[in-house]
């Protein structure tokens, strides 16, 4: 699992960095700074896990909690925005709902499911390492 999480965190970091600096134009600090910070935390934990460094699990704990908390926050904000706009504009059709739902569906595996699995694994690791 150590290698799997290392690879997945490295991939998530890469997707975030490419997405922020390769796709999204122009630069906007409110988006760039937090996403870059998350990407760096993920990258550090990935390096630690893949290189079997002594601080790897601690780095993974930080990365997983940061991703999990921010993931829930981002998903919440998107859902609340959908509800707010639905309240303001009324029934605005299937297309807007489908696009918003697609965004949430794309985000959840990386921002909620992966860090949750990591946190569960970390718990098992700490239980197994106890004498």
């Amino acid at each position: 699992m150590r290698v799997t999480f290392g690879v997945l965190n490295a991939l998530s970091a890469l997707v975030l960095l490419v997405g922020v600096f390769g796709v999204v134009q122009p630069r906007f600090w409110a988006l760039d700074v937090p996403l870059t910070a998350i990407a760096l935390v993920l990258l550090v934990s990935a390096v630690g896990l893949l290189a079997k460094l002594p601080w790897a699990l601690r780095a993974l704990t930080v990365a997983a909690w940061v991703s999990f908390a921010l993931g829930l926050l981002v998903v919440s904000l998107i859902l609340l925005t959908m509800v707010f706009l639905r309240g303001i504009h009324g029934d605005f059709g299937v297309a807007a709902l489908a696009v918003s739902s697609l965004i949430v569906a794309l985000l959840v595996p990386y921002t909620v499911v992966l860090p949750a699995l990591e946190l569960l694994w970390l718990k098992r690791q700490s239980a197994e390492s106890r004498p």
Partner: protein
Amino acid sequence: MTPRTLRRLLAIWLGVLCVCSMLIFCAVRMDRTRSPTGPYVVSIWERGQRSARTVVASEPEHALAGEAARRGTQRVVERIVDSAPILLHSWLLLGHSLVPARDGLSATYQGRTAYATPDDLLALEAYEHIVPLGPLSLIMGIDVNKVLAALSRELGTEPVELLRHASFRRFAVTSDSGYPREFREADVTVDAVRKSIQDAARYLARNQRRDGSFRYELNAVTGGDSEDYNFPRHAGATYFLARAANQLHDTVLARAALRGAAFMKDRFTLHCGAHACVGEGDQVDVGSSALAVLGYAELLAGGNEEFRAPTLDLAGFLRSQQRADGEFQHFYSVSEQHPIDIQVEYYTGEATFALARANRVSGDARDLEAARRALSFLVTRSAWFLGSHYFWGAEHWTCQALADLWQRAPDPVALRFCLDWQAVNRNLQFEAPPAPADYDGGISRGPFMAPRLTPTASRLEAAVATLEVARAAGVPAAEVALLEHQVKRAFAFLLRYQFSPGPTHLMPNPRQLAGGFPGSPLDLHVRIDYPQHAAGALLRYWELEQK
């Protein structure tokens, strides 16, 4: 974290999210369907300015009766149907809390309430706040600064103070202003279409200067005129006027078309290699020359022989810009006398259509062959790109070229292309309900934005051309019926918003704007290409129905 802790955490998160969602939804929603309960906002408008206002709880018909009796005034009653609070004192939330063209905003400050009704927001041009973000222009809700400034003037305070301490509500109204007018699909009759064409053409003729140029873009709510100018759009307006003059046998329109064409022929015709081209400066585009060809060819059809030689010369220029694969080089350097192989939107379709029309005048097989090759280039879709069935450019000229060429060089691939494009446009068409009834038939540009008229109109030009070919080519009746239904719904949308006479109470000079088509329900500007595309589509439909 244990699985149990995770489950608990997610359950709490979901519960909090559901409660927050319910609270937000219930707080901000309004019921637009219920009957107006008041209060009633009664306004007196004079030459586009609001000169008096009162808010009454009942009997609005008697309010401001004295002011309404004055000459040149219009009284408008906006009945409040429902209202809801604006959440928090946030610039961002306030900006996104109003539905464009449908909602107003009230502010209560120190016991007094001021209303910015939909009419006020239209007059302020405050429904769309466009924020440039790099190469993008984002619409970030309403223009909060303009609205706050207007409300704070009425309440005798500063906008910042108002945003911090006032209590805001959005409200929905029904208005007796008569704009947009009620117009359904069943109202799209041959007579209604003819009148609309004539009004739009007269708008262009009325707003033409002596030298043949047009007032490029009139702002209905200020009466102002834009300094900009654009040759392809001038040529397009001239083309429409010439067509309308020929079809409606209208001498006023014919004179206007001649003036518009002479403006290009005598003042803005340059030498591009061995041929003439239209434009000015060091560089010209093929769009101006292509649309000039269309205009000249129409004038020729009306008996103006002096345009024969210029038509043939410009057609020669267009042919000389064509590449071996059928595409055109869209620019020509006049100073260095060579083509520039850069492409932009529209021009290939315009040049294709122009060469198809030029062939009718010249009888020159080279024009027909060039048009045929260009059409084939435009409609070829790569088998390797599955997205080609879902991503489309602006193909309104392509499908008009298809129709013009159909009898001489039928291209079934182009017909399939245009039918597929119209199927995509059908998906983008607003349908009421759930869309507002006024938007039914318009082409959507997003769920939270009002549709624009010209994208609908230009797609309609192509839709009617496609309909013409579909009927001639024996396309299955069910597909033709879908296209007919789509076309008539879109025309109803356009006719609802044409200035006939439009929201005259908001206009300093309604007569000048009569017959024009605005940019959108929120953008009451009339640029010369708006009536050109809208009435051009109507004219094409009228011609088809005459056949």
